[in-house]
């Protein structure tokens, strides 16, 4: 608290900002109900300290969700126009060639993005609960500065909730919203990010002050009292006796986060797969070596058994040469085995042991000694990911394979028989299944 009352020019002082008559009038006019609402906020634990602790948690964790989300866009390969949305203007992170090492890179970045995004839901809800009286403040503003700040809060709160809702619906296949997920989630992220930066810049001093002041992390219920009135008006004017301590509230929020973590990590950890009880990928995908998650079945891709039968041929192009191989000829080439994860943009991942021909051996076959990129085409005709471009490093990595077998047996039709691409750290949708043609560029 300041030693003397705030100067009348401050945003919290009596209205003197332009147009002064408007703000004074708003201040004097009390619409019916506003006083009843103001009295109805009675929780004694609301106040700068609780809001700041929850804010500090989000300040540390949300940037991780934002950065991993942007990395996901880079991993899709914007250089080839395959990052969605495409054509984003100047609003994108610096683009670089997505590395193939460590092989678990995409598994970790995308797993973190989705899992942390889910785990933070109770923290966001707790934070919103802690500041909800501000929404009903009267007057709603006392200066143009406050009007603008409140509008930016609509971007902040609308932004975070929009990101959570679209993300949760997307990973659970419920496309209720009827717009393109990639476009909405990408631009929603930018709106939220700029609003977050603005909010942090304005509120960080408050957060630091509150956390430097007396703490309540050890205060038991019996000694839980409201904080002294604060300049933001978070502390209840007419508090009732506490029914839960502040540390109790934090424990409930943290417990909620742990509960969600426990029911979500099974998407990304093979041994815990079935603990993701309430998610589509938390189940067994059949028994045997091919019993791991399928995102798109052969039936959904519209690929027929006739196309993948004995008549199937792989066309390899490059440097003006074209080679056609059947599956027997591919199996007769040098086979390489690698244990590699495959990770989906929707957050799930699995590690399997793949066997097949190195992509760089196929490039050498058509005379491309140092491939700069490759275009892989599937037998699939309709899907968004029926073809994928690979960077040079994704072709030459010693573990980058045209896989023919998995875990010691032939690929199942749903996993891409007769042949599929598997490359370390490559997003799952670019590990093309039912490959028909690979074209290498020098």
């Amino acid at each position, binding site marked *: 608290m300041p030693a003397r009352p705030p100067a009348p*020019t401050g945003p919290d002082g009596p209205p*003197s*900002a*332009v147009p002064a008559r408007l703000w004074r009038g708003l201040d004097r006019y009390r619409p019916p109900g506003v006083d009843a609402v103001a009295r109805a906020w009675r929780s004694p634990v609301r106040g700068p300290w609780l809001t700041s602790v929850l804010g500090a948690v989000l300040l540390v964790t949300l940037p991780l969700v934002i950065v991993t989300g942007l990395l996901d866009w880079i991993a899709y390969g914007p250089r080839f126009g395959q990052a969605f949305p495409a054509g984003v*203007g100047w*609003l994108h992170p610096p683009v670089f060639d997505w590395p193939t090492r460590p092989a678990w890179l995409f598994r970790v970045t995308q797993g973190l993005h989705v899992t942390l995004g*889910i785990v933070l*839901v*109770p923290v966001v809800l707790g934070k*919103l609960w802690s500041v*909800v009286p501000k929404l009903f403040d009267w007057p709603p503003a006392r*200066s*143009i*500065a406050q009007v603008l*700040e409140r*509008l*930016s809060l*609509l*971007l902040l*709160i*609308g932004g975070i*909730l*929009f990101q959570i*809702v*679209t993300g*949760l*619906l997307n990973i*659970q*296949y*419920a*496309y*209720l*919203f009827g*717009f393109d997920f990639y*476009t909405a989630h990408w*631009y*929603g992220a930018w*709106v939220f990010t*700029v*609003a977050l930066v*603005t909010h942090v810049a*304005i509120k960080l001093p408050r957060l630091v002050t509150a956390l430097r002041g007396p703490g309540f992390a050890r205060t038991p219920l019996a000694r839980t009292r409201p904080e002294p009135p604060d300049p933001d008006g978070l502390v209840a004017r007419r508090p009732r006796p506490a029914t*839960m301590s502040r540390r109790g509230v934090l424990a*409930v929020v943290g417990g*909620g986060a742990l*509960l*969600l973590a426990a*029911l979500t990590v099974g998407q990304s950890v093979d041994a815990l797969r079935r603990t993701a*009880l*309430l*998610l*589509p990928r938390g189940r067994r*995908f059949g028994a045997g070596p091919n019993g791991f998650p*399928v*995102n*798109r*079945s*052969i*039936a*959904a891709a519209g690929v027929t058994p006739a196309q993948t039968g004995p008549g199937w041929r792989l066309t390899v192009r490059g440097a003006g040469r074209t080679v056609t191989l059947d599956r027997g000829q591919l199996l007769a080439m040098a086979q390489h085995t690698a244990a590699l994860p495959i990770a989906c943009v929707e957050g799930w991942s699995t590690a399997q042991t793949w066997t097949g021909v190195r992509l760089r051996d196929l490039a050498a076959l058509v005379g491309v000694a140092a491939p700069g990129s490759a275009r892989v085409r599937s037998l699939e005709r309709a899907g968004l990911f029926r073809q994928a471009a690979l960077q040079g490093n994704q072709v030459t990595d010693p573990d980058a394979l045209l896989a023919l077998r998995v875990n010691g047996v032939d690929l199942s039709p749903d996993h891409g028989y007769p042949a599929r691409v598997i490359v370390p750290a490559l997003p799952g949708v670019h590990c093309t299944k039912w490959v028909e043609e690979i074209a290498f560029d020098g």
Partner: protein
Amino acid sequence: MAELRRAYGAAPWHLLLLAGCFAVAGWIALRLAGEPAAGRMLLWFVGAAIAHDFVLFPAYASVDRVLRSASRHGGNRALLNHVRVPALGAGLLFLVYLPGILGLGDGTYTRASGLAPRARFGQWLAVSAVLFAASALLYGIRRLSRRARPPVR
């Protein structure tokens, strides 16, 4: 500068910051305006905030009010949090996994994976029941230990 500060109601950097924020948001809005589903995006963006502030928050606050008054009239304040916490847990799971629990994405899931969706409503009920049972067990243990060892005054 002082005049700007008084008229605007905050420091000049505050204005610059917010101008930057709205410039980016405005640029995005213009960019998306050409999208066929731009209206829907705006609806979901604003709707998410409205749904939280005017539906979800009032709903859980009212349930909590009922629980608090029941515990006050029942004269058993210790029980309150043993109902609140598992109820919050069950509600949180319902909210986060709602599409799966209600089977909203089942059609898309089956078309993509070729697998029959599982009914997850029962699983959610089971997890919620476990949360309530664990809370009840803890409450029982607390009561017993309190009875065995009266609080030191």
